């Protein structure tokens, strides 16, 4: 790792935070289920970025390994989540979460 290619840790963290915040924002304000789902992926990737950044900075392998786990879980989640979305669309003919509101008191 040469001096020239050195990018400070804080840049990575800022980018990571930015990505995560975008994800949270999208998660809160979007109405389309698929968009919300994508926002979740964005949050996950934001977190992943900070993991690898720390791992590289501290020369600890654990962070890198953890990212693999996150990716695996995210893949599984995508499979289940998309299946749920299709099921929801088939029964309710809409992807607007504001109309999927039967679960309440």
């Amino acid at each position, binding site marked *: 790792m040469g001096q020239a290619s050195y990018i400070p840790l804080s840049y990575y963290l800022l980018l990571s935070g930015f990505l995560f915040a975008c994800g949270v924002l999208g998660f*809160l304000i979007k*109405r389309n289920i698929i968009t919300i789902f994508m926002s979740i992926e964005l949050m996950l990737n934001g977190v992943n970025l900070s993991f690898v950044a720390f791992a590289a900075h501290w020369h600890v392998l654990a962070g890198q390994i953890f990212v693999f786990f996150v990716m695996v879980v995210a893949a599984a989640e995508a499979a289940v989540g998309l299946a749920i979305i299709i099921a929801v669309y088939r029964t309710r003919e809409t992807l607007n979460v504001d109309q999927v509101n039967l679960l*309440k008191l």
Partner: protein
Amino acid sequence: MNPNLNLWLIPILPLAGAAINGFLGKKSSRQAVTVVALFFSGAAFAMALSVAARFSSLSLPYQEFFAHWIRSGNFTADFAFYLDQLSLVMLLIVTGVGFLIHIYSVGYMWDDPSYYRFFSYLNLFMFFMLTLVLAGNYLLMFIGWEGVGLASYLLIGFWFTKDSAASAGKKAFIVNRIGDFGFLIALFLLIKHFGSLNFSQVFQSIVPLSPEKAGAGLLTTIGILLMVGACGKSAQIPLYVWLPDAMEGPTPVSALIHAATMVTAGVYMVSRSHVIFERAPIALTVVAIVGTLTAFFAATIGVVQTDIKKVLAYSTVSQLGYMFMACGVGAFSAGIFHLMTHAFFKGLLFLAAGSVIHAVGGEQDMRKMGGLRSKIPWTFWTMTAGTLAIAGIPGLAGFFSKDEILWRAYQASWSYWLVGLITALLTSFYMFRLWFLTFFGHYRGEAEAAHDHAIHAAPDAHSGHGHGGIHESPKVMVIPLAILAVLSVIGGYVGVPGSLGGNNQFDKFLGPVFHTTAPPGADGTATEGKGAPEEETEGPEPKTGTSTELIFTGISVAVAFLGLGLAWLLYYRSPQLPEKIAASLSGGYQTLLHKYYVDEIYAALFVKPLIDGSTEILWQDVDRKMIDAAVNESAADAGYASDEARHMQSGNIRSYAGWIAAGSAVVLAFMIWMGVR
């Protein structure tokens, strides 16, 4: 070593009978119920007899241990039995008289629809009473004590559909509870200061103590508290009020529980604790005074009662007073002697009264009886034996025991003797009054023809049977009467005093229980003549003592005949006289008729304030306005808060997401804040 007597079988047998009849009796025939009840109570009696037969070969006190019960630190209370001369006497009385009354009840209760229930309760009572007399420690005794209270409650309220019977049972239970409270506190004090409730250990640690001469020391306190317990169970002033009401129960119950056995439990307990009382002269004086007063007041009430069972009830209270008087002057064996003879003759009198009631179809008012002598000869003759015995006519059981008590009371103080003597006069008078009213003169009840109809309105057991006319009771009732009559006649000869040429076997027999533990160098009323065991009986006393005693015996005999004569004059020769006397003394007569208004006074002093306080303060104020209000308010508040909170659950996914985000933000903020600190 002692042989194994298997004492535990004696109480367990009636318990088994109670369980079998209680659980299976409803579906069994009356014959089966009878067999079970009589077999198990009879077996207990047989066991008691076999124990008595082997008694002389035992080294006493014989103790039997069955199982651990409570072990906590140094304190132990076990299921253990304790047999000495005193418990043997009680054991024989309870099983013997109990068995006879079981037999009698077969005839008396035969027509009752709850026949099996009656015998189940009766056997249960036997179990608890035997536990009480055989217990090896105060705590086990207390179980029996409470148990007989329960059985008494169940049997007084046996005809519970009748309001008066239900309330009488309740009254007995509640009044007894007051006494039990005193008993319990005494037990706590014993545990605190002697670390044990086992008779042998407690008495061992008390025997070296010297008597408490003045002031209320520990033993005095314990003694008085024990006496409070005895007052409840044995119907002494001020807690006697439940016993007359207890006559609401079936007559055999009155005989067994409220005359012969349970009510004597207090006397037994005081005698059992004589080691404590001998060292607490003040407590003994309390016992003597309470006993003397009770004997007198109950006798005066008994004089004017018109219900045949009420007369006997007040007589029982009065005779129990005699027993306590004896205990109070330190003559414990005399008290137990009277307890035994009283069990015979009062059990007999109640059973005979039951037979009379049976004969006249449920009538209990003596004013409506009369002239029954020739119609129910067996009942008449047995009742005569009982009456003569209780009145103290020479040669019968009551004469010897009562005379011994009076003599010992005189040795303590002439005032006890005087009151006791007046009571003896009253006793003789009201008993012969009962006798003349019931058996002599003309029948004053409804005409024979109307008799059948009278039966159906009768309060007692025999509302069902259809045979008309005044009739003798069946054999199954007469035989126990005859046996008890024989016992009432000869029962006193076990304790013929020295002055009459006997040597008081009974006193000698109980001697080892009562005399060896008297405090050294004790004086005064507490331990009259007990300094040395060998000087105990009246026999070895100087000749002047013997002749004095003979004079006193003469006085009591004269008084007994005086009572007989008065009753004869007033209720046989000129039966119109009593009404005139009552009219001329109307104030006093009314007071007596209303039993000195004690029930009314208690109602005004204790019952009404309790009910009012409970209703006004505890129910309306404390319960409704504070406890209920607190619960209702907090429930309403929780409902209100939940109602607000449930709006969070809108079903809108994005609002959930918002809550999650907000929550995470709070957690993060908290963590950052913690980190910064």
